[in-house]
């Protein structure tokens, strides 16, 4: 039973990270129907920014709590700026172009950003400072759930609630929902669609940055390539849950994380990804729009 609990929590931690990144995918997809392949890179840039800021601050002797907050803030701000800029440069001019062109532009952006960080920083893995200390009250459970797992879970939960509130009740949230339902109609009722899309990118990128910082501090290292695999997994999670649906992305993330964790634990980690993708195929065969996706009837 303890083994099960351990696997369960490790799956949840993994799932939370997938979910945080998947939200960015799903929000962007919901609004402009684009698979934003550069999103994984935004996550990586978030992790790198927090790495740089946290290291600088710790060299100048700031206390831990302020380091955590400032590094998180910097990661969110810069990732959001990158997300905003990427959208403006690489996707906005292609808004009316064939959909696949935007996809290729996204792949190009992803290659560009990876190599940009490789050249600007380093090809080596960098040690990420341990931002989350071991809490004393967690000591009895440390062999099952670590302190950083706890922080990751709590942060994810908080972010989810915050995001749901934002989308449900705020003005911009309503505008976002309207835009995702029908862009032309939203424009007609006076919504500044370009602004809504920018805000979507900003929010999605900031979430990815927070995910990037948390996971980097959890595993203690980063390099320029971490965004690629995380991005693909998160994208899988988003589709699994029903792309375009925010609760779907969260659910998809957790399902994927737990599947991988249990597959590793009870079968073999050799095939953890095979399990993840097979699950995806199976779910899509029986529910072609994902777990929580709307099965849109085709208008003729």
């Amino acid at each position: 039973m303890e083994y099960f609990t351990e696997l369960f929590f490790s799956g949840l931690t993994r799932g939370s990270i997938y979910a945080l990144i998947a939200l960015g995918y799903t929000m962007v997809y919901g609004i402009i129907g684009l698979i934003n392949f550069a999103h994984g890179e935004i996550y990586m840039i978030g992790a790198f920014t927090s790495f740089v800021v946290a290291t600088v601050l710790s060299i100048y002797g700031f206390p831990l709590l302020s380091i955590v907050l400032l590094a998180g803030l910097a990661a969110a701000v810069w990732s959001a700026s990158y997300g905003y800029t990427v959208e403006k440069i690489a996707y906005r001019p292609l808004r009316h172009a064939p959909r696949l062109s935007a996809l290729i532009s996204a792949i190009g952006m992803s290659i560009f950003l990876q190599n940009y960080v490789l050249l600007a920083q380093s090809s080596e893995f960098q040690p990420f400072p341990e931002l989350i200390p071991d809490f004393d009250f967690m000591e009895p459970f440390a062999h099952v759930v670590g302190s950083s797992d706890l922080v990751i879970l709590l942060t994810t939960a908080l972010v989810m609630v915050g995001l749901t509130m934002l989308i449900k009740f705020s003005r911009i949230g309503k505008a976002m929902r309207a835009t995702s339902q029908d862009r032309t109609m939203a424009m007609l009722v006076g919504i500044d669609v370009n602004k809504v899309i920018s805000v979507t990118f900003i929010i999605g990128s900031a979430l990815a940055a927070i995910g990037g910082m948390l996971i980097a501090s959890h595993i203690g290292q980063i390099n320029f390539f971490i965004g690629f695999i995380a991005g693909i997994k998160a994208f899988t999670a988003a589709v699994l849950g029903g792309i375009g649906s925010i609760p779907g992305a969260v659910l998809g993330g957790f399902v994927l994380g737990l599947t991988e964790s249990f597959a590793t634990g009870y079968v073999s980690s050799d095939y953890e990804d095979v399990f993840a993708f097979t699950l995806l195929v199976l779910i899509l065969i029986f529910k072609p729009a994902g777990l929580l996706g709307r099965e849109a009837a085709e208008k003729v």
Partner: protein
Amino acid sequence: MLSIEQLKKSLFVSLWFAFLTFPLLVIKVDPIERTVQWRWENMALVAAGSFLVSLLVRVFQVQQERRRERRATGEFVDRVPIMQIILSEPRYLYTLSGAVLLCSLVFPFLFSTYQTNIMITALMYVMLGLGLNIVVGLAGLLDLGYVAFYAVGAYSYALLNYHFDVGFWMALPIGALLAALFGVLLGFPVLRLRGDYLAIVTLGFGEIIRLILENWNEFSEGPSGISNISRPGFFGIELSLEHAILYLYYLMIAMVVFTIFVVNRLQDSRIGRAWVALREDEIACQAMGIDKRKTKLTAFALGATWAGIVGVIFAAKTTFINPASFTFLESAIILCIVVLGGMGSIFGVIVGALILILLPEYLRALSDYRMLAFGAVLVTMMIFRPQGVVANIRRSYQFKSKAEGEG
């Protein structure tokens, strides 16, 4: 030409990029020695560079604007692009094709073995692009796991050669057939899916194939791969490396010509028309009595066949294969070839493959900046020519006063 207002905007852009690149380009930390290096010179470079680029873009936009104005006043008549004239007029097309073919035939004698070698690679991607073009360009099914079929072809030759000493020419049809079989295998479960759901499932399929090759040692030798695969036989004569490359080159030329012929015929065939119809409107297509299931499956199977053939050639060319050659990035590159060249256009795919495969090779001069430039080129090309280098303009009714549609 440029107003103060625009200069101001460019200045703002340059400030924005200076801010954006600040943490990563300016600060460099060494977490062990605990030292911080401030590279302010980078910030100056970025600011100056982005200012210039932004000015250039503005000049370009102004020109575009002028052209649009002139077009509106009727001063400026839209010319039919020269490519379009050549492609639509058989007389020009045949002359051009003949010239290209002639050039490619004498190519190895003009250039070094290295050039010939990368040209073989480029030709392989031409074939892959044409194959994927059937699936993506014609049938409109977004396939992100195309590399799986390529892997199937490569491994079927490698394994047959390793275990049973099967020759290249025997393996070629077997590889193609196996790949087609996998194409159908993938096709069945995804029949109901559309658009991006299809994309992710195909991506997953590609990864599954690669992971199995990587983990199932008893079957595929795992990550260490299979070495010493025979090069293609030439009537039983042992060829030196230069000659083998030459032979492979002409083989590829023949294969590409054959592929172009087949794809061209397919396009105009009953099934080709059905694919295009399927791409344009699935429901209308079904209403017309086209068997959606069969049409989709043939698209997958035929697309996969080409990948299988190229896979066999790939294994014969490198003489060594391991699963690392069949990653998602490879699928992405092939997809880029199709889209960048111009979806659905054979000529476009050829141009796309030549650009995308030769570009990184000639960018070698940039060394470290090679892939950075590659990514930037992809984005730039898409922004300035979203329909691809050679757009496939089909016969269609033109409405003169066309309102801008919502995509």
